[in-house]
């Protein structure tokens, strides 16, 4: 299988589907002439022209809403949020219209829309440009929310997202755009709602998504050095959510640590812990541990920023705690 970057996998998914389906168009800020601030759409305007790769003014609420209207009119728009930090300006359109239209129209209207862009912290982007919004959008029925971590998944899930009859919040791990991985040739999709066991193990289950997954795999190797055999689960999909894979794993390992960059309160990790104690109560040998970012807006200074994100050592310590071992 060819080895390509997460970024190129994303671009090829969009380009291939645009070749196949005239109804697919892209819109967003500086995705065309500029080439895309993260170069995900770079070159697509040359390939498909400005009618299908549309540079918009800085009006997230307006162009997201317009894209919903395009979807209602039978198109399959893909909106780029230059970064998800700007999506708060589009929250009304995403939550009040995209998520609910099918329901309050009694099923008369479909919104086959993908909203995509980088999510999660970068390097020193500071408070307004650092958010992980999985739980924020995952809360709302009517939306689908995914957060792929590998080139293979990001391509297969993007193809699934474009073909999905419902709105998909596509949260890319911006920090992984440059990472490489094998990607199958040709057309394939990765279904939503299925978590991935990224590493099998028997002693403890490490759960994460997006940017955390490669970190957890690295941590699992370190734990192996301490004779701890960790299973690593990549959630992949936040809504629909795959409780079963997690519960099965915990029934095997009896211990779980959930890791997220996101803030702790009312978050994905909260939900994971709640589900595990609900569905694997008698199998749990220790409380589910949550490792989250500091409860602060992201600071600019690098040393503060590093301290604001979860650290590998914190995860390692948590793994030891749930195993009642000394670190």
């Amino acid at each position, binding site marked *: 299988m060819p080895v390509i970057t997460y970024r190129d996998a994303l671009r090829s998914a969009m380009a291939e589907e645009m070749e196949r389906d005239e109804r697919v168009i892209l819109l967003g800020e500086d995705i065309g002439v500029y080439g895309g601030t993260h170069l995900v759409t770079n070159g697509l305007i040359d390939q498909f022209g400005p009618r299908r790769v549309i540079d918009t003014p800085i009006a997230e609420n*307006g162009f997201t809403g*317009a894209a919903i209207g*395009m979807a*209602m009119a039978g*198109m399959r728009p893909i909106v780029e949020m230059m970064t998800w930090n700007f999506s708060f300006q589009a929250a009304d359109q995403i939550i009040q219209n995209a998520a609910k239209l099918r329901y*309050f129209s009694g099923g008369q209207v479909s919104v086959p829309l993908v909203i995509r862009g980088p999510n999660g912290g970068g390097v020193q982007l500071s408070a307004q440009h650092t958010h992980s919004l999985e739980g924020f959008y995952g809360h709302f029925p009517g939306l*689908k929310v995914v957060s792929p971590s590998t080139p293979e998944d990001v391509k297969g899930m993007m193809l699934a997202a474009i073909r999905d009859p419902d709105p998909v919040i596509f949260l890319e791990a911006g920090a992984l755009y440059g990472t490489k991985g094998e990607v199958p040739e040709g057309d394939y999709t990765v279904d939503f709602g299925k978590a991935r066991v990224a590493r099998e193990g028997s002693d403890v289950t490490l759960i994460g998504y997006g940017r955390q997954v490669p970190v957890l795999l690295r941590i699992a190797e370190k734990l192996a050095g301490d004779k701890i055999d960790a299973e690593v689960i990549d959630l992949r999909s936040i809504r629909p959510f795959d409780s079963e894979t997690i519960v099965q794993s915990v029934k095997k390992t009896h211990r779980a640590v959930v890791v997220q960059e996101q803030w702790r309160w009312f978050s994905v990790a909260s939900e994971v812990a709640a589900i595990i104690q609900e569905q694997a109560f008698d199998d749990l040998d220790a409380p589910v541990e949550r490792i989250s970012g500091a409860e602060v807006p992201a600071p600019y200074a690098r040393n503060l920023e590093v301290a604001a994100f979860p650290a590998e050592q914190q995860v390692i310590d948590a793994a030891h705690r749930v195993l009642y071992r000394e670190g």
Partner: protein
Amino acid sequence: MATTPSQGKRRRSATEPTKSKNGSSASPGNRLGADALVELYDKMVNIRLFEDAAQRGFRQGKVGGYMHVYSGQEAVATGFLDTYREGDYVITAYRDHAHVLLLGSDPKAVMAELYGKGTGLVKGKGGSMHLFDVANGFYGGYGIVGGHIPLGVGMAFGQAYQKTGGITQLYLGDGAIHNGAFHEAANLAGLWGRDGLNPCLFVLENNQYGMGTSVERATANTDLGKKFESYGIEHVKVDGMDVEAVLAVAREAADRVRETGKPFAVEALTYRIMPHGAADFLEKYRTKEEVKKWRERDPIGLLEKRLEDEGVDDERIAAIRAAAKATMDEAVTFAEESPDPDLSELLTDVYASDMVVQAAG
């Protein structure tokens, strides 16, 4: 009235399209013959009586939630939707009963929706604020002020991009125009219109109040239509109480949008003679005198004078009113006798797929 789109077409071909230059207000050239006037009257009376019935239902506690009637504004939607062609889209806010009826929805199904019944237009799931009849071109029915405006602009883009030949009629209120969603969407419409990619007809229904806030208290520049100039969108004003004037402007505007693929805006000055919503009892924000003054310009009253001038006799008018009343009585009976939605409906229409949706508990 149960106007079907086909009837709609027949009717339109009947009335002679009269071009009045630059769509400015009613000139004698706009005047219609007796039969055309009677037809418009029929529609407007049907809307008014529907709204009266809906309000009775609300007062009896049979209609719930928020409900906003169109009484006083009938000439606007009646005039504009007379230009509707199959393939066109229509979208508005929550004051949506008239629009969907004019597009041909069965008053029975609309009333049943207000009553929250399974036979309702959207299966009882949306209610008064969320009427939809996609088969007849009606795309809702939205409760968040400003929120539907970007949708309409996107729908118009979709029509042009897919070369369907259709246009989108996008209705908005005088209160909604101050919302950021309007600014962003109108700018996109103007921008995309340059390439013929936005056949969007903005119909600004200026009924002079956003809930209890008058236009003067909402903006320092009360020439609302002029705000479209910021986006390179041409616009005209029309007397929203004179259905013939509205019709003339609407025809010209719709043709122009259809031909150019560019957006166009019409500000219709009108007035809601009823409270903002069925729960707005006090109306502290306007005087009885003001309401009375405007009731004298009730579009239905004005039209009755015209019918007189055209020598339409009282029997014919009485017959229309009687028929409309019968239609509404029938609609109410249907709504009252219809069953509640099946409880299984609770969990459907969240996603297209058979994705499992959790019940409460």
